[in-house]
């Protein structure tokens, strides 16, 4: 695997839209060719080389390419946009849409990410060592298809509206989350190891949420359905089971109504 290192040298005055920083866009290119890829700062189109110092050549395919992003990229959006294979490591924190629409490969952010990380993600692994913002693994605005596959791991906390319209895949949050988890979800699994606030699973059609910590207020549409012993992400324990959202529409399978599931650790 070949490694390309890009280091922020001339930070933008506004924000950069760097939707070309992905193993797919870099594959088969030399450092000079990578420097010629376009980026946008507001309504001005320029090149990656204007802002970043680029060293190393990419592999022949995306799967053979690893990108390391160094320097302050807090004002850079769309890192790992639509990546399908290979690796992307961001040494610090980055802005919105990190790993948006990714379909494969591995992306690691060692700092925090802002909103819309993993938007409409289809596959691959997105790991955030710091905190994530709002709309993690959610659908793009107006779309009804959120995350459909892949895995997101957040070692810190996450914001609100995570997993909105989630259809599949798995999300693990080691810390706490803000309001609205899996709103309108029709599948997928979200594990929250910290505490949750309110509006968990509102309008949920299907899917599963695990909460290890506290829930400030339960949605009235979640009906108690007993207790179960389970092993979740390697942790065994007793969970209170709720089904819902009973106010929402639900599918039927073999005559049985399929509800969303919420498990809260006792």
């Amino acid at each position, binding site marked *: 695997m070949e490694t390309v290192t890009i280091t922020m040298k001339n930070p933008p005055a506004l924000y950069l839209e760097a939707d070309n920083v992905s193993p797919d866009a870099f594959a088969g290119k030399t450092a000079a060719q990578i420097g010629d890829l376009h980026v*946008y700062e507001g309504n001005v189109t320029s090149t990656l080389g204007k802002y970043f110092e680029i060293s190393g050549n990419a592999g022949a395919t995306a799967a053979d390419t690893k990108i390391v992003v160094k320097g302050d990229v807090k004002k850079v959006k769309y890192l790992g946009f639509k990546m399908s294979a290979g690796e992307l490591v961001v040494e610090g924190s980055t802005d919105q849409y990190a790993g948006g629409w990714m379909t494969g490969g591995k992306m690691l952010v060692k700092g925090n990410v802002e909103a819309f990380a993993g938007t409409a993600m289809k596959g691959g692994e997105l790991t955030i060592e710091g905190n994530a913002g709002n709309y993690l693994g959610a659908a793009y*605005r107006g779309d009804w298809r959120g995350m459909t596959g892949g895995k997101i791991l957040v070692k810190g906390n996450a914001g609100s509206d995570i997993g909105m319209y989630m259809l599949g895949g798995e999300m693990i949050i080691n810390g706490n989350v803000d309001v609205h988890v899996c709103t309108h979800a029709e599948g997928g699994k979200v594990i929250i190891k910290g505490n949750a606030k309110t509006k968990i699973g509102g309008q949920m059609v299907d899917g599963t949420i695990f909460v290890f910590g506290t829930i400030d207020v339960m949605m*009235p549409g979640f009906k108690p359905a007993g207790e179960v012993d389970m092993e979740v992400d390697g942790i065994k324990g007793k969970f209170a089971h709720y089904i819902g959202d*009973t106010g929402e529409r639900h599918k039927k399978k073999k005559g049985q109504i399929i509800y969303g599931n919420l498990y809260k650790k006792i």
Partner: protein
Amino acid sequence: MTKTITDVICPFCGTLCDDVEVVVSDDGKQLLEVYNACVIGTEKFLHSQSKDRVTRPRMHQPDGTWKEISYDEAAEYSAQMLAKAKKPLMFGWSSTNCEAQSVGNEIAEITRACCDNTAATCHGTSLIAIQDIGLPSCTLGEIKNRADRVIFWGCNPAHAHPRHMSRYSIFPRGFFTSKGQMSRKMIVVDPRVTDTAKMADVHLQVEQGMDYELLDALRVAFKGEWLPDVVAGIPKEKIREVADMMKSGRFGIIFFGMGVTQSLGKNHNIDAAIAVTKDLNEYTKFSIMPMRGHYNVTGSGEVFGWQFGFPYAVDLTRGFARYNPGDTSTIDLLVRGEVDAMFTIGSDPGAHFPISAVKQFAHIPSVCVDPHLTPTTGVSKLHVPVAFNGVEVGGNCYRMDNVPIDCRKVVEPPEGMLTDEQFLIKVRDRVRQLKGVA
């Protein structure tokens, strides 16, 4: 001798009353009296006559004073600012007519700006929810003639839309509502005992920020499913009673305002309220309508929608329209420091935005086009006063139910003053030259 002009449209709130009468002097230069309008609307008409009105553009000087400049110089400054910026922001539009909005959109397209309207601080969240699940709505006329279940959720029309209840929603005697308010059941959902709540048959005093839970509980109640004993501070028996009251009507309407759109839950509250409306249509006829604030904020959404495909928070920086509130919305753009020029028209963000967003005005070039003196004109580098739309110039406006109504000119503006549209045309023509667009 004075002249009385009838059937004047009031350019204040989204109710857009069309039965106002104004008395003007014989030469048509002075507006003397206003009839039928509410106290706020009357004040809006009379304010155009104030003696201390600013009638020429003014430039903020480094020592804090203002220097009077000509409209041409103001147009030059605005055009230069917009043409040079990498990411200009054009905000406001809700207190001007659709014709001016359309010219503004041309400028935004040429300069590749972000454009947004006052929905940013009011019903923008409703627009997000509408995109997500749709909006079963109707006109105010249908409500007047048919509605026998009227729900005001998080809004206080007694103060914010003073003639709404008397013209459309509660008191009028309509074709199928011949007994006026006697033929309607009024439900108000509000954490406070407002003057509207005091009039209600049922007041649900919901806990602050728990509207989403209460809306969900109503949906559960419609389906007869299990409910916890108390939801959002309301006992379940009460929720089931209200659910039955809503189901038993012949035609129901939910009006909702800032209390749900801008409290915890935001777009999800409206999403759930629309879902409630949808559910109710299995039992009876129900509609839902946002209580729009500015008299032409609806029109701004219509013009944006018609020209760019999205109703607010449109980002044209890449040459095509993108829309994702949180990324392209005004307050986020300002707070995050994403824009380098600010053009405000027909709105007062200085009074309504968080202070962290307003502070950004001070760091970037800014123009404010507004007939009034406002906090925004106070912090902008350039203030361009214009004629009052709906008083000194006519033009198309949209009522809160998306019905277009032409505003009327009733009095002459002070001599030499331009309208919003005339000033924007000057800016547009100069921007075209600067950008080399034919």
